């Protein structure tokens, strides 16, 4: 018996490639949480992608239906946990819309300021993690974390918690800002601008980074709209659409800021739109500080137990990842009858397959990173 049987000898004629299946996640640093995708590759090229989600499903909607309006606050800032205050804002606006509650002007300004700080926080997280995805290893992470820590310190000073402040209330805020807030925020803005400059120099100024991202996985505006993509990814395709301007809520109609857009919707545009948005957010915060009125921060007519009769609404806010919508329905009593979260990450992630197929395996990780998903929001 020969060691190598005659029929096993490979010749060019019998050399066939087969598709190979690669599992990525659910525990994998490149998936930014507990997300799993099964990629089918032909050589180095991805031919199919099947995303699996739900590893972080906590039953947000069922929990909200079974708790009263005050108790549910804590669930909602655990959806987009990188920008908890944006989620709280949307939840509170839905409850206020249904109950017809007024929010004092000072509270609206503080909300906008805190929501923009959250947005900056979330975008810094993206810049740090995305830099690491593309290969900048740890430097971008450290630059981003330096600023995030400072913002979190401010959140802690204001509300007592860093990631999940539970600072908003239907009808206003938990408490007023600390006395020295203005100097703290102005110092924070200077520090954010410094961080922005550092990251811009590190990433945008890096030829390898730019070469890797430019032209990768471009997307047309019409396709993005049909797939339900919103937020920075939609703006990267060249559509200047931002809910803060298209349907202004809170006091955003009094703020002057620009909507950064991209050209082709490729990975670099998505990155650069987010980078520019941080700068626009700092402008909004500065205007908040200048225009901040004095007064109450919680509606004095707020009943101790909020009861809402038949009411229904769909509230849309510009979350950090796109349109953060809350569909809410009340049919009497102290609990909502139904609350549905329209999470931007969920809708953006649904388009992953279309973006990844046809690209190289190594680029699939970058494309996933460029979506900036938060699994708390995807899985609810």
């Amino acid at each position, binding site marked *: 018996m020969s060691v190598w049987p005659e029929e096993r000898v490979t010749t060019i004629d019998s050399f066939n490639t087969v598709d190979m299946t690669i599992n990525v996640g659910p525990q994998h640093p490149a998936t930014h949480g507990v997300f799993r995708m099964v990629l089918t590759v032909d050589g180095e090229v991805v031919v199919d992608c099947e995303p699996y*989600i*739900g590893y972080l*499903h906590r*039953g947000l*909607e*069922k*929990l909200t*239906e*079974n708790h009263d309006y005050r108790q549910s606050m804590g669930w909602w800032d655990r959806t987009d946990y990188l920008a908890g205050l944006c989620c709280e804002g949307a939840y509170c606006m839905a409850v206020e*819309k*249904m109950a017809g509650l007024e929010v004092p002007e000072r509270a609206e300004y503080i909300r906008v300021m805190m929501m923009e700080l959250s947005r900056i926080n979330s975008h810094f997280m993206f810049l740090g993690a995305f830099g690491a995805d593309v290969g900048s290893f740890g430097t971008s992470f450290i630059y981003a974390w330096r600023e995030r820590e400072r913002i979190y310190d401010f959140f802690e000073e204001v509300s007592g918690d860093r990631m999940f402040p539970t600072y908003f209330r239907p009808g206003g805020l938990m408490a007023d800002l600390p006395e020295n807030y203005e100097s703290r925020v102005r110092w924070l803005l200077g520090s954010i601008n410094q961080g922005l400059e550092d990251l811009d120099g590190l990433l945008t100024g890096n030829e390898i980074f730019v070469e890797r991202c430019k032209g990768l996985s471009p997307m047309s505006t*019409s*396709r993005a*709209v*049909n*797939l*339900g993509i919103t937020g920075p990814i939609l703006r990267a395709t060249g*559509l200047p*659409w931002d809910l803060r301007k*298209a*349907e202004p809520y809170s006091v955003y109609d009094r703020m002057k800021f620009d909507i950064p857009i991209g050209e082709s919707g490729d990975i670099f545009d998505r990155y650069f739109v987010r980078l520019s948005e941080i700068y626009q957010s700092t402008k909004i915060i500065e205007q908040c500080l200048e225009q901040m009125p004095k007064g109450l921060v919680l509606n004095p007519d707020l009943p101790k137990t909020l009861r809402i009769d*038949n*009411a*229904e*609404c*769909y*509230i*849309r806010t510009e979350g950090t990842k796109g*349109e953060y*919508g809350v*569909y809410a*329905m009340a*049919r*009497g009593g102290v609990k909502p*009858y*139904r609350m*549905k979260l*329209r999470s931007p990450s*969920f*809708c953006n992630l*649904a*388009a992953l397959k279309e973006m990844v197929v046809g690209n190289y395996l190594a680029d699939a990780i970058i494309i996933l990173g460029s979506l900036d998903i938060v699994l708390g929001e995807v*899985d*609810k």
Partner: protein
Amino acid sequence: MTQPAPASPPEYPGISGLIHKSLPKAAFTVLSTKTDADLQVAAADLLELVQGLFERKELAFDMLANITGIDMGEDKLAVKYNFYSFKHNHRVQVTVTVPWANRHVPSLTSIYGAADWHEREAAEMLGLVFDGHPNPKALLLDEDVRIHPLLKSHPLQTVEILQGIEEGVPGFKF
């Protein structure tokens, strides 16, 4: 706990007047929510109406923002669709109510790519069946967990007991 009375037919609040004008054949009645006009349409007429909303130039609802399934009680399920037009910056909500015994709703995946995951989620959470969906698998829950957690009959706290159950009406008391 009663729904507000439907508006009388000639009254079309907000955007629904324009919709009625450009799609005179579409059969719907109009309610209004705190934020939107809410078109009530039968499941059989849904695709035709949505096709009209999508294609007519003066309506141009090019984005399907959200799909919500709701257990309305009394063996009824409702599906709420929120549409938005980037071109005209207007929005509308469409409601389909189906009985539990015949909980079939046509899928909108042929018109809106965004409908895919939203419909899969509503299907697993409430037991709705979206006819014509290309990939009607479970999305957030395990595939072998055949429960519909967002039904009102499903208890909040016995989820772990229910997780081994393969068949049957969810929400059994054990």
